[in-house]
């Protein structure tokens, strides 16, 4: 059946069933208007503000701010952190999803809940727990410094804190997806003589690749953007232990607004790219991801 003609015109109900369950035009316009206004003020305006402020000193000042060595070192640390944390959590996510989706065992629901735990922990607390362990007065702190390991106020602490806050991302995308897909195909592969690893590689992975990518995308965005947890363990040593978000904070608190927003604009671009890829994935592979949505 063709689409109803008036669906091509703006401001019409998507539910084309009828007038019986629609709203009067005035109500409809009011709801749409409120939505657009609310999202415009809440989402688009802040984004616009970032770029407007970043470029308020002109294009030259913008690039000068980005060329600053401290900014560069913060970019490098951010990339390094993501490059460590994302693969670790991806490996965990795949392993946990495999165990949960393909087997029955006691305590499965508890395990799923525990995996989600970091989401309900304040990022500041996520940083704090590592201070309590590896800090100068922590349980393992003296031992670590005796062996020349710097964890807190150094890159390892930053990676640890980032792993904590991004812990559930990949797992929680994959678990419902793999549960929905069941185990038939894997068993079929096994009966055809495939070994465990090649079963995963040739059968499971192609089935979950888009969900996996989706999880990795979100995990990466959070890993690069994490602020609170990293802030606790970083020590804010310029040029050494500042990630990009921390660099933004320091510049902002130093009243170097153009520089702060310049670095922030890079992070906003990251958010843009993430959202774009995410929408693309949802658009192209929406059916596959359907099991994942609505969490």
């Amino acid at each position, binding site marked *: 059946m063709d689409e109803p003609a008036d669906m091509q015109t703006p401001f019409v109900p998507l539910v084309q069933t009828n007038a019986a369950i629609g709203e009067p035009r005035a109500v409809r316009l009011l709801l749409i208007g409120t939505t657009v206004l609310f*999202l415009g003020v809440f989402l688009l305006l802040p984004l616009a503000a970032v770029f407007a402020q970043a470029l308020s000193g002109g294009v030259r000042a913008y690039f000068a701010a980005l060329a600053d060595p401290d900014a560069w070192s913060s970019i490098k640390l951010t990339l390094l952190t993501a490059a460590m944390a994302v693969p670790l959590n991806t490996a965990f996510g795949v392993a946990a999803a495999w165990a949960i989706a393909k087997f029955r065992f006691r305590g499965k629901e508890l395990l799923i809940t525990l995996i989600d735990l970091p989401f*309900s922990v304040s990022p500041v607390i996520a940083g*704090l727990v590592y201070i309590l362990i590896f800090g100068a007065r922590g349980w393992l702190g003296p031992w670590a410094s005796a062996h020349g390991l710097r964890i807190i106020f150094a890159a390892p602490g930053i990676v640890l804190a980032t792993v904590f806050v991004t812990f559930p991302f990949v797992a929680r995308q994959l678990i419902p997806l793999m549960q929905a897909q069941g185990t038939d195909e894997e068993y079929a592969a096994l009966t055809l003589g495939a070994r465990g690893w090649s079963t995963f590689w040739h059968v499971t992975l192609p089935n979950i690749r888009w969900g996996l990518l989706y999880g990795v995308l979100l995990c990466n965005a959070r890993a690069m953007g994490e602020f609170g947890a990293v802030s606790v363990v970083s020590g804010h040593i310029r040029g050494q232990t500042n990630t990009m978000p921390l660099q933004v904070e320091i510049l902002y608190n130093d009243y170097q607004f153009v520089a702060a927003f310049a670095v922030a604009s890079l992070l906003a671009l990251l958010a843009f790219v993430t959202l774009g890829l*995410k929408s693309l994935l949802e658009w192209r592979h929406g059916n596959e991801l359907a099991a994942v949505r609505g969490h």
Partner: protein
Amino acid sequence: MPGFSLTLGFSLTYLSLLVLIPLAGLLLRSAGLGLTGFWHVLSAPRVLAALRLSFGGALAAAAINAVFGSLVAWSFVRYRFPGKQLLQAMVDLPFALPTAVAGIALTAIYAPNGWLGAPLAKLGIQLAYHPAGVVLAMTFIGLPFVVRTLEPVLEEAEKQLEEAAATLGATRWRTVTRIILPAILPALLTGVALAFARGVGEYGSVIFIAGNIPNVSEIAPLLIMIRLEEFDYAGATAVASAMLIISFTLLLAINLLQAWRRRRGT
């Protein structure tokens, strides 16, 4: 099926080392304070004010999101309008935008000399450097939870239920309140609870706009940070434990909610 002990073993080890043991360590530390020591820290007016702001602000933000999030989700699912696809993609911005960036951006807008702050200041309304700013930032951060939880539920809601109500003589308003709302209520509560939990622990987007005036606009995570910088580990630990315990109770509530949703098949 192979790989059970490998994957489960790895998962449990990784989970324990990185999440469970560190969190248990935190609770253990604060247990070391004893009940009186714990209470001594928490009963300080500044701590109480900070906890009240974090939880109260998150609750207010969650309530705002319950209303506007439902409205946004409804418009997305039920109507077609120019710019919808852009807005739909942008709803996840608070997930994707680093919190520090959100924080300074919101501050730039709502500061007394900002785009919206200036006109609002003329009307005598102050948002930045005020508890209202805290709620504002928490609303920003929680919005996607409500919209994203509601959208699929509204999409799957059978239009026939609404038609059935209409044929039985129910007015549109009654259909919305008696048929649609009960159907989406569990999802709405779940989304609101998620937004609330996120708001309680939120740090990055709040501290810039809050102004951080002790007893007035200082949130609990910031207080933990301040205690740490003062090397008052006991104080930091106690506040953190209090937050954790409340948050875990919330998590339990969310899980029960989701179990309820599954039972009702919505």
